[in-house]
């Protein structure tokens, strides 16, 4: 079939781009792995190598301030040959991660949950990109490529988030719950995606199954499944490292932000400059702020659960403690599923200009601060503000478009007319 050939061609080209970049520029992976925009303290590949070194030399990697990543990554990478001497296996692994993530994205697009979920039929449902175009947007996004070349472990998190979405939109409960518990196990905050994806999974199951599905039994069984899967992963990690101290070194670090290495998010400079007596209070406020979007969006957009999950990934890319461009690439790729909303967006030029501005000036200003010494920390901080503002404009604007789209179905007489909010 032509589409299969196209898909093979697309995936082959994406793999070729990555492997060529890996082999033609052998110093590029380490250069990117050292960039603060790509590698955060909780996803950096260099820190993973350090943790791996300590793990293979029988020193607990969690009894130190360098390694903050999940324990199950250690046995996985210890099976691979040492990437500083034989990087090919690792490169292949990361290329495969991206291809699998793109495959999950194709599945999401093919399920049509973005445009026609169970409770809602968009009036613009014919305006959409093909699943291959969406996958190409993910695979050839420079942010995704940079994440892959830097071998950041957020590639794993992105893969599991996309898989969870794909499986939820196919109604495959077990794989959905397992993929989401893996994503939450790796990065903690994807647990907030569970309620909208559970609704999505429920909607799909209701459509698919002939008999009625009891919502209570459905949600209880899935919550139990998530608890069992996540608990199993945590218990396996404890068995692997011999103690529970990894919890403080992985999730504790995400919660309490002891490592203030710069990143593209809003937290690091805020807590660098925060007065000591208020630090705990504002940590609580910031986490509450991140978590507060989930219930509001899930309730208001009950009819479009996939859109809620996608919007939440956008919020994670802005408001979590250690965001990187990997999170932004995930969100920007998922937004392309909602092509039908683009005509309704009002600030798309502003937002895209802001994001482009920040992504070009960010590295330059970081250089001025850290290397040239002709700028100070405020330069890079200002760029992270612009970046966050740009992404939050995209999030807010797409949300407006989604609501306007719903309104067009509810009240077709208002289509194309001026609206206001009361």
């Amino acid at each position, binding site marked *: 079939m032509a589409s299969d050939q196209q898909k093979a061609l697309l995936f082959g080209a994406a793999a070729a781009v990555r492997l060529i970049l890996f082999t033609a520029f052998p110093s590029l992976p380490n250069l990117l792995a050292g960039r603060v925009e790509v590698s955060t303290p909780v996803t950096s590949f260099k820190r993973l190598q350090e943790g791996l070194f300590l793990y293979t030399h029988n020193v607990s990697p969690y009894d130190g*301030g360098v390694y903050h990543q999940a324990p199950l990554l250690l046995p996985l990478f210890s099976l691979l040959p040492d990437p500083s001497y034989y990087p090919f296996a690792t490169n292949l692994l990361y290329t495969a991660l991206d291809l699998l993530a793109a495959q999950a994205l194709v599945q999401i697009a093919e399920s049509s949950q973005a445009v026609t979920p169970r409770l809602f039929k968009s009036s613009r449902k014919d305006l959409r990109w093909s699943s291959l175009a969406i996958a190409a947007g993910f695979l050839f996004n420079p942010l995704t490529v940079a994440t892959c070349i830097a071998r950041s472990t957020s590639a794993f998190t992105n893969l599991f988030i996309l898989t969870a979405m794909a499986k939820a939109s196919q109604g495959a409960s077990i794989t959905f719950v397992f993929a989401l518990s893996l994503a939450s196990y790796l990065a903690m905050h994807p647990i907030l995606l569970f309620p909208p994806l559970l609704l999505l999974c429920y909607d799909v199951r209701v459509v698919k199954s002939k008999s009625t599905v009891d919502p209570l039994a459905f949600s209880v069984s899935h919550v139990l499944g998530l608890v069992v899967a996540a608990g199993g992963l945590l218990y396996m990690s404890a068995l692997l490292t011999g103690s529970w101290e990894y919890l403080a070194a992985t999730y504790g670090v995400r919660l309490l932000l002891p490592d203030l290495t710069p990143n593209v998010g809003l937290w690091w400079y805020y807590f660098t*400059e925060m007065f000591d007596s208020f630090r705990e209070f504002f940590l609580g406020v910031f986490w509450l702020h991140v978590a507060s979007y989930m219930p509001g969006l899930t309730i208001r957009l009950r009819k479009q659960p996939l859109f809620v999950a996608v919007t939440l990934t956008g919020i994670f890319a802005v408001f979590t403690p250690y965001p990187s461009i990997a999170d932004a690439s995930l969100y920007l790729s998922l937004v392309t599923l909602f092509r039908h909303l683009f005509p309704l967006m009002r600030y798309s030029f502003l937002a895209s200009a802001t994001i482009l501005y920040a992504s070009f000036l960010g590295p330059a200003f970081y250089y001025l601060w850290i290397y040239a010494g002709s700028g100070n920390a405020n330069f890079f901080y200002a760029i992270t503000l612009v970046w966050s503002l740009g992404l939050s404009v995209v999030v807010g604007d797409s949300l407006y478009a989604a609501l306007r789209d719903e309104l067009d179905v509810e009240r077709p007489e208002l289509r194309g007319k001026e609206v206001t909010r009361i």
Partner: protein
Amino acid sequence: MLSFRSLIFFHALVACVLGSSDYAERLLLRPLPQSALLASFNFRSNESFTSFEQQNFRYFPRSLAQILQHAGTKELHLRFSLGRWDAESWGERPHNGAREGGTGVELWAWLDAENEQEAFSRWLTLTNTLSGLFCASLNFIDATKTIRPVMSFQPEGDHPNLSQLHLLHGTLPHEVVCTENLTPFLKLLPCKGKAGISSLLDGHKLFDASWQTMSIDVRPVCEASGECILEMEQTVDMVLDIDRSKRPRDNPIPRPLPIEEIECDTSKGYNAADTCYPLHGSAEPDFSLSQLFGRPIKGACPLTDSDGENANTVCINTPPERTVHANTTGPYVESRLVADTLRCYKLPTGADFDLSLPSQQMTTGLMLQPPSLFAARHINGHGQERGSIQTTIRNPTSSAVDFIYLESLPWFMKPYIHTLRARVSNSLENPITETFYKPAVDRHRGTHLELRMLIPASSTLTLTYDFEKAILRYTEYPPDANRGFDAAPAVIRLVSPGSADRKGVYIRTTSLLLPLPTPDFSMPYNVIILTSTVMALGFGNIFNLLVRRIVGADEVPGAGTGGIRGVIKGKVERLRALLGGVKKNT
């Protein structure tokens, strides 16, 4: 050859001094190349265990003894150091490096405690009380600056219950050693700087030296019969620049000599009469103790032995042909030892004593013994994000050297131990034989790295590893944040060839200056406000959409058109109405 023998003899002499009497002091002067002079002051006081436990102190200072008893300290080593020992030109270190510390303050002690927590609380007691005693910031040695070395230090004393003792080690590389540390140091001496060789110690000269180290070592020494004494050794080693020290204090700026007084190198051609290539090093410079130290020795300390080996309190290590005059009004005794290369003087009591050496053209010189290892440590790389440490260790001798390398790094310098590489210049073998590594924990513990390495004969070992610099909270930076942070020197202990006595052979590298990225200290409020604004914009925008209902613009009276356009239109209309109203009134 002569000198080599003399040094060995001198060490033997010191060892024999240390064994016999309850209080002894000795000053050794040794001219070094490039008009430098090594002055080694050594004071030793003993107290028997029984009188120590009864708090009956004669020579041992009561203030320090009570601190040791209170903190359960069985063996103590405290160092205050400044400057760098130039091993290339000055040869082997005094006392084989066993009585010197890294730049700043270094403290290590064996504490008697049941468990690690108790040992650490006693360690804090010890550092806090010593901080008060020595007017030093020792109280800043907290958990992040404390390590528990496993291989690098061996106890010098005799401990019956070594398994119960805990070794803790702390450094303060940033500490500036100065006069306020010397005064309490002198107060611990029985003659308190009023008489004896300690009367030469003056803060102005001591801290003006090219290199100086003050040390205090307390250790128990037990005879074979089971009788134990507690021995305290205080040393001050300094290398003075003779020309610099001789400058008068009221006119310290060096001025060029008139050209007639300079000896010019006549083998070179000159194009004018006022140019000159000065000849260096042909004659040994003249100096006297009162010129170098600002005052003569105020007679012997009456507590030293009046005869025997220990009565010879001032010694000078020069070739036999060098003229040395002793200037004093009292009786003194000069004795020549070790093939005349060591001249020792018994000081008169109650009369000033001065040694003066005239400028002299020498035909023979003393050979300096080269050190067993040369070590240098640097930070490579640029920028405030990451870097790498490079340590170069050179073995000039013709035999392999087995040594232990200790690094204690601050927590905000995060080494990547998987990048640690050790290479020997002429062999492919990995020189590291044993590794002990304890990684740092942010704000709780520093990095502790110990390596046992073997360096083959006449080769160079290069040790490198990468590190990353953390960014700190703005309250954690010192007032001079952009100066950078100090990283403590690496300590090298030679295992073989080691030393004959229990002191060991040590080499310390210089400390490192580590520039960290700094935030803008002036704008915590601005950052809080700006970040909060961005978050409020995101939150407000999204929740505004979520909680409000969308209706047609024409369905709501007075709302006008939506969006910014509508708002502006509304404003313009209001303004127009206002202006119209004003016009009507006028």
